[in-house]
């Protein structure tokens, strides 16, 4: 192959690669830009401080406070529950199962499989369990379903950071006579805290944005839920329902709701970054 041809091939692929990267990053900016521009006309304080009033879905006064709070309650509850389930799992497969490595491999494998389950399937499964227990669509049912959705995301992300804790630290702790539980909680947990918080925030972001899993389980209402057994509105479903409306004012509110949801996601991911940077100072490198 001639030298000129080799050069030429190199150049063509470099251009293609740079163009692809531009497309990927450009589409993100385009999505954010479009949502913000379309949302501005409908975005005002009423949107976030008031619940839907009479004729809201015909374009009259009101806001989406019900959906914002509903989403926050739902995602917070689900994240809390998912932490209670995934932190012990992640700690266990990294500190306890030294002798049975095969078990850890298996747990990771199933977590990965769960990670790939579509959220609509979690929704359907949540619905089955809900009807089996005689529950109605409610905040609680939504929280349980979204917690299942968050579990593999969170557990796997925690596992990745806990795995990085140097085994010398664990050995040192053991040689000082600490039990495995003490090592897990005082050394491993402390050392990987920034990563664990990041994992929680990532899962929170996933949970608050998901629509297909809450459609069957959380219901929808114009009121802010005051107990776990009441149905709860969510931002993602508010966007979905309003976008289907033939009335332009209502559709404009769908764009505004999408901007609010995107803003929450942005804040969460910025917080995750800032928090993990700040906490990283306290760990032993």
């Amino acid at each position, binding site marked *: 192959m001639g030298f000129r041809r080799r050069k030429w091939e190199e150049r063509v692929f470099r251009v293609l690669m740079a163009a692809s990267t531009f497309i990927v990053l450009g589409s993100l900016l385009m999505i954010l830009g479009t949502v913000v521009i379309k949302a501005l006309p409908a975005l005002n304080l009423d949107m976030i401080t008031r619940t839907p009033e009479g004729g809201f879905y015909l374009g009259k006064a009101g806001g989406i406070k019900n959906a914002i709070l509903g989403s926050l309650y739902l995602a917070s509850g689900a994240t809390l529950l998912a932490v209670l389930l995934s932190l012990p799992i992640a700690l266990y497969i990294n500190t306890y199962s030294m002798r049975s490595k095969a078990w850890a491999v298996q747990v990771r494998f*199933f977590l990965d499989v769960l990670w*790939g389950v*579509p959220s609509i399937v979690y929704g359907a499964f949540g619905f089955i*369990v809900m009807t089996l227990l005689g529950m109605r669509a409610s905040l609680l049912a939504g929280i349980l379903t979204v917690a299942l959705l968050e579990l593999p995301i969170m557990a796997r992300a925690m596992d990745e950071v806990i795995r990085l804790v140097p085994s010398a630290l664990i050995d040192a702790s053991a040689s000082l006579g600490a039990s495995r539980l003490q090592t897990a909680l005082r050394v491993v947990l402390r050392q990987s805290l920034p990563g664990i918080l990041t994992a929680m925030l990532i899962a929170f972001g996933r949970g608050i944005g998901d629509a297909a899993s809450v459609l069957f389980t959380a219901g929808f209402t114009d009121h802010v839920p005051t107990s776990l057994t009441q149905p709860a509105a969510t931002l993602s479903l508010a966007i979905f329902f309003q976008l289907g409306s033939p009335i332009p004012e209502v559709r404009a509110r769908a764009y505004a709701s999408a901007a609010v949801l995107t803003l929450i996601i942005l804040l969460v991911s910025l917080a995750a970054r800032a928090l993990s940077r700040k906490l990283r100072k306290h760990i032993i490198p």
Partner: protein
Amino acid sequence: MRLLSALPGLLVGCILLGLLLKSRGVLSMQPLSRLLFSTAWKPLKGQFGLLAFLSGTLWVTLAAMILAVPISLLTAVYLSEFAPRFLRGLAKPLIDLLAGIPSVVFGVWGVLLIVPFVARIAPLFGAYSSGYSVLAGAIVLAIMIFPTIILVSLEVFTAVSRDLRDASLALGATRWETVKHVVLRKGAQGLIAAVVLGFSRAFGETMAVLMVVGNVARLPHSLFDPAYPLPALIVNHYGEMMSIPQTESALMFSALVLLLIVFVFNFAARLILTRVERRIQ
């Protein structure tokens, strides 16, 4: 804690079992082949053929893969082998952010920008389209799975050792030749897994696709035709679940089919990735 760590496996089993038990109603009524290979979806007459929906999902997913795979792989190679340091540092958080954008927001964006775009370009190809089409779904879906394919591929590239690259460069290969003959060859299996993971992610995606794809239950014949993917069927018929007999069972069967297909692909991808990891370590 050991008990709790059995939860993921149990959950996989429970989901499969639950969906299977719920599908029994419709499975006992009709042979499996009729459910999967008939296009007649008439719940009132007790006909639940899923073919139109299965092919809708396949069309949208395959079209999305054709768009997403080359772009994602080229981006991953660029970021891992060619890009200047600052660009790499900038791109990674942005791709993470793209992965975190909720699917309804993708849907809103698709309705605002991609649907009118497709309606505009359809006449250029001698077709008429309202814009709500396979192509619109595929474009939105392709962007949604960029992060999955890129992030997994980047991990695969990091696993290829520096020494191999240096050896190739020392022999006089250009950087692209090094990528082509060394990095891509060494990482081939991992890249296949990345693509398969992207595929299974795309296959089950619900809301964004549902919002732009038109939802007409017919076999699509071109990219500009509307389609009706399987997850959209479940969402749209949710209201009739309790009123029309066997509809609930048929919808749960659809969810089961969806899950099984995604499972097969995920299993395959994860098996490959575990093997790759073991070989490299």
